[in-house]
């Protein structure tokens, strides 16, 4: 422990995650802070509208603060496959426009990228590390997993127009069954297709049984392939010593992409008592292809902002011990007591008894120092 005892809980967790990623053979990567504006605009479909803070560089080139780390990391890779997997992790900031408050915000992330061709192993390794990451933060976690291939496969019928597909996915995302069924009715889809889409909607829950239910619905090759991939990942994890985590890993086909970012496996991680998504990731082969790289990629990021928010809520005390004293008491005895506690590694604060009412801190234990003795206050 030593000096690490005094860093904040969120910093400690970030270090633990870093240790985890290092031990799986991931190397720390740095991405440039600035990107060429043109490059970002070309790849806008990966991070959405209104997201770029741009500025003129000294050479007159329009630059921007990066809105996404993965995009910048991939860009710097060589186009051809070097024949081995690239395993990278990063602790970086991204800059995004926050719709609710109409401001730009710096968002800190820690994440990994597995770039290589071994789809099965890569997927399973990344997912196992996502489970380890969540578990390191809170043992009560849920990792919900979906596959864009399955969802696309189920919605590939020619009757479903691009616009209708977007509306269906919107309602999937908000688990809005009542509006979805109205939309399907108005769109005059064949009865069977309508029922199928509504059943996909209900596919959420324990991994294995949900997968079996999904099998009964899927006829398209794309959907079946996606389910095979999910089943394979689950089996790999189960035999690889992750079985204790698997109750926390559920299937939820309502998770869908806002953007073109992920095109295969996609997942979101939650921990109890944190209201927002803490971890998100997936497979981004189409982004690799768009950037001209002949390999596949899977990765995830943990939001350090949400993590620090979570840890701030969990922290109960600012100090271990508060000692209140009166002027004129035995100061050398007081100091020697404080030194004793400090030597034990406890965080001690000493204050005049008069100031105790207005102290803006929380203490585990409070003592009153009187005639050379400490008296515990309850």
């Amino acid at each position, binding site marked *: 422990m030593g000096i690490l005892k005094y860093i904040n809980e969120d910093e400690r967790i970030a270090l633990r995650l870093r240790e985890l990623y290092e031990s799986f053979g991931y190397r720390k990567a740095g991405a440039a802070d600035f990107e060429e504006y043109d490059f970002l605009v070309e790849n806008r479909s990966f991070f959405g509208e209104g997201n770029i803070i741009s500025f003129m560089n000294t050479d007159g080139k329009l630059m921007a603060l990066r809105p996404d780390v993965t995009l910048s990391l991939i860009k710097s890779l060589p186009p051809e496959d070097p024949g081995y997997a690239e395993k990278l992790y990063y602790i970086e900031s991204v800059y995004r426009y926050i719709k609710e408050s109409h401001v730009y915000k710096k968002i800190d992330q820690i994440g990994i990228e597995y770039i290589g061709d071994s789809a099965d192993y890569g997927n399973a390794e990344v997912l196992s590390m996502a489970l380890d990451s969540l578990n390191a933060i809170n043992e009560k976690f849920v990792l919900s997993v979906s596959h864009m291939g399955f969802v696309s496969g189920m919605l590939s019928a020619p009757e479903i127009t691009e616009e209708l597909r977007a509306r269906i996915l919107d309602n999937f995302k*908000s688990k*809005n069954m*009542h509006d979805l069924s109205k939309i399907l009715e108005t769109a005059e889809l064949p009865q069977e297709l309508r029922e199928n889409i509504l059943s996909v909607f209900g596919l959420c829950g324990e991994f294995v049984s949900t997968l079996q239910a999904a099998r009964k619905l899927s006829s398209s090759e794309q959907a079946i392939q996606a389910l095979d991939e999910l089943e394979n990942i689950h089996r790999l994890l189960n035999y690889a010593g992750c079985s204790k985590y698997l109750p926390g890993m559920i299937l939820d086909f309502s998770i869908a992409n806002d953007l073109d970012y992920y095109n295969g496996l996609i997942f979101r991680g*939650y921990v109890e008592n944190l209201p927002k998504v803490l971890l998100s990731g997936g497979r981004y082969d189409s982004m690799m292809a768009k950037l001209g790289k002949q390999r596949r990629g899977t990765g995830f990021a943990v939001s350090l902002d949400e993590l620090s928010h979570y840890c701030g809520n969990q922290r109960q005390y600012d100090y271990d011990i508060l000692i209140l004293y009166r002027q004129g008491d035995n100061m050398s005895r007081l100091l020697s007591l404080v030194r004793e506690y400090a030597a034990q590694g406890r965080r001690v604060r000493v204050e005049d008894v008069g100031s105790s009412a207005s102290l803006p801190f929380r203490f585990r234990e409070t003592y009153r120092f009187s005639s050379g003795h400490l008296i515990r206050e309850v």
Partner: protein
Amino acid sequence: MLNIALPKGRLGLMAYEAFEKIGYACPEIKENNRKLIFVNEEKEVRFFLVKPSDVPIYVENGAADIGVAGKDVLIENASDVYELADMGFGKCRMVVAAPEDYIEKSGSILRVATKFPNTANGFYASKSRKIRIIKLNGSIELAPKVNLSDVIVDIVESGDTLKENGLKVIETVTDISARLVANKSSYQFKGGLIRNIAEKLAKVGLARGDGNC
């Protein structure tokens, strides 16, 4: 403890009655007092009364696990929450209305007065119509009469207020009713309980069938 955000006012009272019907009573809410938090220890639920447009904010940020909000508020805030049931009351329509003698001039930029700028923007963007939003906070019906705007986007129940101000409905933007929403993380950890409540409330909502706002 399950935290439930309800909108203050008539909609909230109807929402509370639906919860009462499915076994989550907390009759103190009906007393006309100034309290904002009501607890039923035995059922382990806590109701908050908040400003109607704030319900999705409480839910999205996890201060409440679930809540009841009008579809108008959900569309306008584009809240990142699950929408689990149509409660079947608070029914009305979001419409485009204009003066009786209004004629659409498709080439010009349409001036739209509204309390719901995001909703109006989204609606006209889907039709590729150029508009200028004039954001107002009340008495929207006045805007076209005093040439502040060409049309308005607003909520109507019966249409009486529109008629009294010489306006007519041109288009429906969307149908509105009260919806049950849930925080996405709470849903992962209290999913069984939340799904159970949603199913029961949807049934109560279907049984009502009527219920204008």
